[in-house]
């Protein structure tokens, strides 16, 4: 059963300062409407594209958005900053209205665009629970019946009669989230709540969202955190410049998000020919996956070289250097000893153990040299030969969803010794 249906949704914004010029525009708009004509500013509206500094005063933040959500689905809305995610959420939560089109909804909606909306610093925790709950749409008796649960969930029992201005920021957020978590809407809209709070808070937050969807209720979730999106959502839509680029299973949408956004590619065709060694492609992938699949960090990663030979070649060394996005070197690896390849072979690969990389973007410098009687000969020397993204793995709910620091995240062996 469809519970949300978005049809031909448009949202227009005015750029720049809203000042004196706006009176003239308002008047003109009103005058044209009186005369039964179209809105004169609708036509000249530019696309929502931050790079394009067009001269239009108006911009479409959303254009022709169509999608529907079924009951019990957890829909992830992803896209980079400025793609229109927040605008869409604002319209869904009735904070602002669309310019054209409509959204049909079945059931009660609660939106969490922020936790602690309407908290008053002078009021006590108890008073704020009631105030915030009512702002989010609960009645006093609903709040009263859940009051003890909310307080227990927040873990601030001791301070419940203290003004919230004396709370630490952590306590404040926990209390605010506790109220929100006890809403019982049929449809829940959540925006980047994960951005605040510590690991424990994230855990509670995501766990609660999972519970909500488990109860057959519908969740719309906007986040930049792909690990969280992938773990939580069943379906996704990708917004770009105010338009829906793709709608479908969450994995394919996340893949498109990465694929559509970066200049890197996991696979590169090339044409090097030195001394009968003909290298025609190099690629990075998870083992048992294709090159155009995304690379997930907790699986074995393979760097594969495809070549053709006119003769046997001995004494090759493969040197691979990895750099981060800023070009700082992270890792150098040299093939162990000489590699001899014979004419029948066409592929050689380097295997990187599962979980070696942290998530991130890596640039690869390639150097292939051959040792012969005259010393070393450089076969291929190609900085920034290719670039690939390693994506976060799906994580069990209840674990930390943020990005770990560092570029490498290998797990090492730990030994207990008796001395």
């Amino acid at each position: 059963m469809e519970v949300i249906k978005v049809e031909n949704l448009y949202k227009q914004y005015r750029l720049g300062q809203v000042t004196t010029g706006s009176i003239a525009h308002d008047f003109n708009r009103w005058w044209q409407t009186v005369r039964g004509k179209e809105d004169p500013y609708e036509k000249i509206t530019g696309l929502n594209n931050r790079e394009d500094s067009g001269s239009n005063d108006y911009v479409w933040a959303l254009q022709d958005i169509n999608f529907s959500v079924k009951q019990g689905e957890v829909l992830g809305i992803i896209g980079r900053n400025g793609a229109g995610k927040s605008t869409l959420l604002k319209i869904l939560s009735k904070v602002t209205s669309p310019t054209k089109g409509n959204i049909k909804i079945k059931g009660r909606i609660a939106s969490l665009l922020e936790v602690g909306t309407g908290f008053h610093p002078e009021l006590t925790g108890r008073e704020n629970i009631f105030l915030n709950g009512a702002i989010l749409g609960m009645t006093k008796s609903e709040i009263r019946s859940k009051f003890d649960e909310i307080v227990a969930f927040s873990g601030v029992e001791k301070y419940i009669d203290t003004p919230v201005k004396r709370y630490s920021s952590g306590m404040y957020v926990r209390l605010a989230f506790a109220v929100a978590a006890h809403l019982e809407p049929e449809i829940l809209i959540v925006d980047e709540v994960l951005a605040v709070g510590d690991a424990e808070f994230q855990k509670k937050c995501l766990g609660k969202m999972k519970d909500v969807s488990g109860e057959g209720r519908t969740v719309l979730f906007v986040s930049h955190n792909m690990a969280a999106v992938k773990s939580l959502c069943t379906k996704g839509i990708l917004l770009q410049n105010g338009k829906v680029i793709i709608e479908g299973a969450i994995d394919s949408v996340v893949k498109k998000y990465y694929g559509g956004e970066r200049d890197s590619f996991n696979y590169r065709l090339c044409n090097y020919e030195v001394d009968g060694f003909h290298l025609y492609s190099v690629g990075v992938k998870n083992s048992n996956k294709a090159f155009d699949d995304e690379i997930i960090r907790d699986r074995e990663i393979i760097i594969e070289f495809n070549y053709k030979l006119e003769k046997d070649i001995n004494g090759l060394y493969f040197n691979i250097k990895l750099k981060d996005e800023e070009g700082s070197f992270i890792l150098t690896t040299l093939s162990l000893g000489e590699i001899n390849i014979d004419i029948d072979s066409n592929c050689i690969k380097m295997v990187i153990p599962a979980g070696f990389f942290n998530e991130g973007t890596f640039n690869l410098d390639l150097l292939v040299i051959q040792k012969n009687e005259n010393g070393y000969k450089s076969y291929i020397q190609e900085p920034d030969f290719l670039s690939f993204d390693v994506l976060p793995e799906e994580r069990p709910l209840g674990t930390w969803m943020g990005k770990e620091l560092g570029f490498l995240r290998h797990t090492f062996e730990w030994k207990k010794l008796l001395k």
Partner: protein
Amino acid sequence: MLHDNTNKNEGWTEVIEPKRSLLDVNLKELWRYRDLIMLFVRRDFVSVYKQTVLGPLWLFIQPLFTTITFYFVFSKIAKIPTDNVDPILFYLSGITLWNYFSDCFSKTSNTFVANAGIFGKVYFPRLATPISIVISSLIKLGIQVLLFAGIALYRVYFHGAQISINETILFLPILIILMAIMGLGLGIIFSALTTKYRDLSFLLTFGIQLLMYATPIIYPLSYTSGKLNKILSYNPLTPIIENFRYAFFGIGQLDIQGLIYTSVFSITVLILGVIIFNRVEKNFMDTV
């Protein structure tokens, strides 16, 4: 948040659309949020006096000091007569009523700007905010009316002040409701306009001050004559003040015609206000 105004055939409970009709006030929805309105009232009341030593006593101090000031400036220095009514009671009655109107008007007039933070994050019927202000001001008025009654008793017993309460005092609730309606109506009109044009909020501050002098607060209507008297009687607040003074002090006369005029004016302003407020509330986040 459930609306019942939509296509029942498909079972949609709510449709979000660009425009709504002129007077689409969802009173049912507003009623469902009555708890929120009362919590806002409580918040406004509690938060103002937290961390003050005198607390709600300030509700007494402000009108008393204003009255004393008026007494010296207008009665002692300017020698403006008060129709043989005890000047202290005369000023205090005017200030008490005026404060209610001016609170309703000025505090609701920045509804959108002052609440942009909340309004930008969560939906609830926006009218809940100005309505809560009118109610919390009403509580303040109630307390100040008690103060007025106390001072009146004191003046009567110890200073021989004359009062003559008659049965038209029963109109008092109507007078208060009229002020509430007018203040709310004007306030939400201004609140809608100030989202785009902030200039108006400057205009409003001294506009309300000027309006007080254009209302017979510190002088009786009978003190004016000719053209001025005529202009003053067009002020819809004049009948409210005059009728109250008639009911309490027995001065002037009962002005039913004036009250009808004020009622028509107030209700028109409120309807207009709600229409404008409704239009603005849907998109004000884009301009505020």
